C-alpha cells in the first residue's frame, strides 16, 4: 500500500474512534429522551420469571398471602410494595386507586413498616389493595430484588412477572405503561 495512503489511514484512526464513541453517546441520548434508558434504574431479574416463594402475615383486618395465592387469584395482577414513611407512595395512592376501580387486582405488601403506621396510611390515603401483607424485616423484598419503595410488579396469567415499575406511579405512567401491558396480558 502506498506509504502516504497508509499514513492517512493511520491518522484517521482517532477520528474513527471519536465517531464511534459519539454514535454510542447519541443512541443513548435518544433512548433517554424516549424514556427507554435510565442509568440509575436497575433491571429487574424477576422479569420473565415466576414470583419468588414467600408467605407473609396479613395487615389486619386483611389476611396474609403467599405467592401461590397470587397465582391462584385473578390474573393479570399487580404486586405493590409500599410503606407509610415513603412520600412517593402517598403520591401514587390515587393512581393505584384508579387502577383498583378499573378492576385490577392489586396485592399490597407493607415494607419495613409498623402495623399501626400502615393502618393509618391505608385509612388516610385509601386502600386499593385486594389484600395487604406485611414484610416487616424486608427479606421478601430482597428476594424480589427490591431497591426502593414504591415498586410495582405486573404478573401475567401464567404467574410470570412481566414488568417491574420502580418509583411512584402517576396517571401518565399508568396510562402509558401499566394499562397497555395489562390489556396485552388480559
Amino acid at each position: 500500500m502506498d506509504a502516504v495512503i497508509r499514513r492517512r489511514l493511520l491518522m484517521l484512526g482517532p477520528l474513527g474512534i471519536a465517531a464511534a464513541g459519539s454514535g454510542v453517546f447519541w443512541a443513548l441520548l435518544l433512548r433517554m429522551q424516549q424514556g427507554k434508558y435510565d442509568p440509575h434504574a436497575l433491571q429487574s431479574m424477576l422479569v420473565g420469571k415466576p414470583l419468588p416463594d414467600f408467605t407473609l402475615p396479613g395487615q389486619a383486618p386483611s389476611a396474609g398471602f403467599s405467592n401461590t395465592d397470587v397465582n391462584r387469584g385473578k390474573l393479570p395482577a399487580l404486586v405493590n410494595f409500599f410503606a407509610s414513611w415513603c412520600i412517593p407512595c402517598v403520591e401514587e395512592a390515587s393512581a393505584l386507586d384508579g387502577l383498583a376501580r378499573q378492576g385490577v387486582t392489586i396485592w399490597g405488601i407493607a415494607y419495613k413498616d409498623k402495623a399501626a403506621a400502615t393502618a393509618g396510611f391505608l385509612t388516610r390515603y385509601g386502600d386499593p389493595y385486594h389484600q395487604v401483607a406485611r414484610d416487616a424485616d424486608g427479606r421478601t423484598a430482597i428476594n424480589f430484588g427490591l431497591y426502593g419503595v414504591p415498586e410495582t410488579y405486573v404478573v401475567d396469567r401464567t404467574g410470570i412477572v412481566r414488568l417491574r415499575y420502580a418509583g411512584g406511579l402517576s396517571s401518565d405512567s399508568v396510562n402509558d405503561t401499566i394499562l397497555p401491558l395489562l390489556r396485552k396480558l388480559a
Partner: protein
Amino acid sequence: MIPELGHFALALAVALAAAQAVLPIVGAQSRDPRLMAAGPALAVGQLTALLAAYGCLIWSSVVNDFSVYDVAMNSSSTEPLFYRITGTWGNHDGSILLWCLVLAICGGAVALFGRGLPSALRARVLGVMGIVSAGFLLFTLTASNPFRRMWPPPIQGAAINPLLQDPGLAIHPPILYTGYVGFSIPFAFAVAALLEGRVDATWGRWVRPWTLAAWCFLTCGIALGSWWAYYELGWGGFWFWDPVENASLLPWLTGTALLHCAIVVEKREALKTWTVLLAIATFSLSLCGTFMVRSGILNSVHSFAVDPTQGVFILVLLAITIGGSLALFAFRAPVLAASGVFAPISREGALVLNNVLLCSLCAVVFTGTAYPLFAALFHVQLSVGPPYFHLTVVPLLVPLFLAMSVGPVLAWKRADLAPALLRLWWAGAIAALIGIGTEFGLHRAFAAAGFAAAAWLILGAFAELVERVRLFRIPLGNSWSRLRAQPLGVWGGAIAHAGMGVTVAGIAGMSLALSTIVAVAPGQTIAFGGYQWTLLAMHDVPGSDYTAHVADLRIMRDGRQVAVVHPSLRTFGQQHQTVTDTSIQTNLLRDLYIALGGEQDGKVVLRLHVNTLAAFVWLGALVMAFGGALSLVDRRLRVGAPARRGAVGVPA
C-alpha cells in the same frame, strides 16, 4: 436589574466570541493584518463581558436575590457569605458559566501574553479558542442560562447541598476547571499549527508553558477532589473510580504525555505528530468528561440531572470541536515537516514508550468508564467498579514506573540501554531492599511492591541530576557547582517524578491502614492500632445554619496525649440533611481518622482509622505540581527572542 445586566453581558460575550471565531482566522488565511489584530481585542472584550456576567451572578447570590432561579434553588440567606459566593458554581448553570469564564480567561491570557507570537499564529490560536467559546457560550445562553428568573420569588432559597458547604469543595471547581480549560490553549495551538501546516521549535516553545500551567492546575484539582472525598465522606477512602473521577483522570493522563512531548518538540523537533494529536486529545477528553457527566447518561453521584435535550446540544458541540479537529489532523498531519530521526533506544524512544503507556492507561480507564454505556445499548446492565481498574491499571503502571526512572538518563537520538541501567543500580538496589524488607516484615505484597516502586521513582528521579553533576566521578566541589548551575527545568522534572513516587508511597501506605467500628460510652477507653482512644463527652454546638452533635475524644499513646479531637454530625435544618464532620489528626506519617456515627443503647458509635502515609497521597500531588511550576519559571528566564520584548509574565 443586575441579573438583566448579567444576561446582557452574556449575550454580548456570545457575539464577541462569534466574531473572535471568524475574523482572525479569515485574517490569517488572507494575511490581513487588521483582521488578525482584531483577535486579541475581541478576546479581551469577551473576557470583560464574562467577568461582568459572572460578577452579576455572584452579586445576585450575595444579596439573596431569589428571583433568579439558580439562586433560589441553590442558595439561602442563612448560609455564610463565603458559601453564597462559592455556591454560584455548585450547580449546573453556574458551573457552565464558570467554564466559559475560564475559557475566556485563557483567551485573554493568550491575547495579553502572546504579543511575541507571530501574528498569524496568534490570530489562528485566538480564532480556534473563539470557536470553542462561541459554541459553549451559545449553549449557556440558550439552554443553561443562569440568569433565568422565577416569579413569584420564594421567600427563602432552597439552600446549598450541605456536602458542598465546605472550603475544600468550594475551591475545587475553579482549580479543576482551570486545569481542564487550560488545555484549550495547547489545543488551539495544535489546530492553528495544522491550519498553518507547520510545527517547529518556536511553536513548541509557546505550547510548553501553557501545557505545564494547565497540567499543574489539573493535578491540584484532582488531588483536591480526592482529598475532599477522604476527609468529608467518612469512609476513609480517597478514590472510587467513579465516572466523574475517571473523567478528570483521562485528560490528566494524556496531558502528562503531552507535557513530555512538548519538551521534545521544543528541544529536538521530533514527535510533532504525537504532540499535535495529544494536544487535541487532551482537550477533547476534558470536554467529553465534563459534559458526559452533565448529560446524565452516566451513572454517577456527580451527575446533574439534566434534560437529555441539553445532552444533544452538547454532543453536537463536541462533534464539531473534536470531530473537526481530528478530521483536520487526519488531513493535515502528514504534511507536517518530517520529524527528527531517532533510534528506538533513546530518550525520544523512551518518550514514545511513555506516550504509548499513558495513552493505554487512558484507553483502559475510558473503556471501564464507558463500558456500561456500551452494554446498555445491548440492554445488558453491567457495572464496572474498583476491582476492574485495580486489575487492569496496575499491570500498565509497572512498565511505566520502570521507564520513568530510566528514560531521563538516556541520551537523545541514540542511547545504550545497558550502561544507563547500570547507572541506576543504586536506585534499583535500594528499591529492591525496601520491597523485600517490607514483605518480610509485614507480609503485605501490595505494600511491598508499592514501597519499592516509590523508592525507585524517588531515587531514580534524581538520577539525571546525579548524572549531570557526575557525582563521585569528579571532585565533590565541582559536582556542587554543576548542581547549582542546573537549569530549573531539570530540577522541575526530577521533583515532579519524585512527587509521583511520594503519591505511590502514600497509596501503598494506605493499603496498610487499620480501621474498626466501636461503640463506646462516655468515659470509656478503647485500645486500637497502638493508641488509646477515650470518649470524654458529647455535647451540641450550634452553627450558622446547622446544629452539630460533637464528641470529644482523647487519643493517647504510651501514656502521652497525642490529641483531643472533636468529630461531629452536623444537622442542617433547612435541607433536612445530616452530614458527618470527620476529625483527622496527622503527623504526615499516619493519619488518625475518626468519624462519628449514631448512638446505640447510650453508647456512641465511632469509626476509627489509623491511615498510614495518607498525607503522602496529596503531598505527592503538591510536589508534582511544584515541580511543574519550577519548570514553568525556568523557561521564562531562558527563552530567546520572544523575551526581548520585555518581561513576559508567567502565564496563568
